[in-house]
């Protein structure tokens, strides 16, 4: 698992490349939260085009960040989810609280 973080204005773009499970979730969570706290972040966009695997640990990671970002008055979006990830997110009702965008640019426009 490789995490790439980019900051654009006050939005954190999180590229999750590889496999997101209970094992890797710990590091992902920590790295994102450190960035939120240290870089004056308000919104998050998860860019998932290179995510090779995700189980329900991914739901925890996204909902956890959503709670944190909501407190800051920001928004959370996801981009480029594959069909498998969509099924898991839908199961947990994630798209009721988080918007899905077709491109990173569209997501950034809506933050």
């Amino acid at each position, binding site marked *: 698992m490789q995490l790439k973080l980019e900051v654009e204005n006050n939005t954190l773009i999180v590229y999750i490349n590889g496999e997101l499970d209970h094992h890797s979730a710990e590091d992902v969570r920590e790295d994102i939260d450190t960035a939120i706290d240290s870089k004056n972040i308000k919104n998050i966009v998860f860019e998932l085009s290179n995510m090779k695997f995700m189980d329900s640990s991914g739901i925890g990671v996204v*909902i956890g960040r959503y709670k944190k970002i909501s407190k800051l008055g920001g928004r959370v979006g996801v981009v480029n989810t594959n069909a498998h990830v969509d099924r898991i997110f839908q199961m947990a009702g994630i798209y009721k609280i988080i918007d899905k965008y077709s491109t990173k640019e569209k997501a950034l426009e809506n933050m």
Partner: protein
Amino acid sequence: MNFQNYMKIEFLSKSQNESFARVVVASFVSQLDPTIEELADIKTAVSEAVTNAIIHGYDNSNEKIVIECKINGNNIEIIIEDFGNGIEDIELARQPLYTSKPELERSGMGFTVMETFMDEVFIKSEKNKGTKIEMRKRIRIRAKENEE
């Protein structure tokens, strides 16, 4: 006669072994020529069961997890067993969004994912003895359809 095959592995309940377990099972199941989607379903279900064993069965201590896989024709049966805490209330554990450890930021969707991605999921558990998850899935026959 139906094609049959069997394998059994045993490993420590370390989170590093979550990916090991799902890759081994996926690799074994591959001989049935599943679709990428079926394979992703199986890998996800295995990942959920192994994660449960590590977090809930053993509270992150290093103990033994056993996985058995049986192939019978186009049916795959996966048994994932731990010998840890056991589940006190199975019906409650099966509820979507229920988690006994909310402080860990777990979604409580583990069993829901297993039940959605597999055809059948059976849970046997006894307090302080452990938990045994049996999951079954039928792999759709594609190219071989004409043989029957």
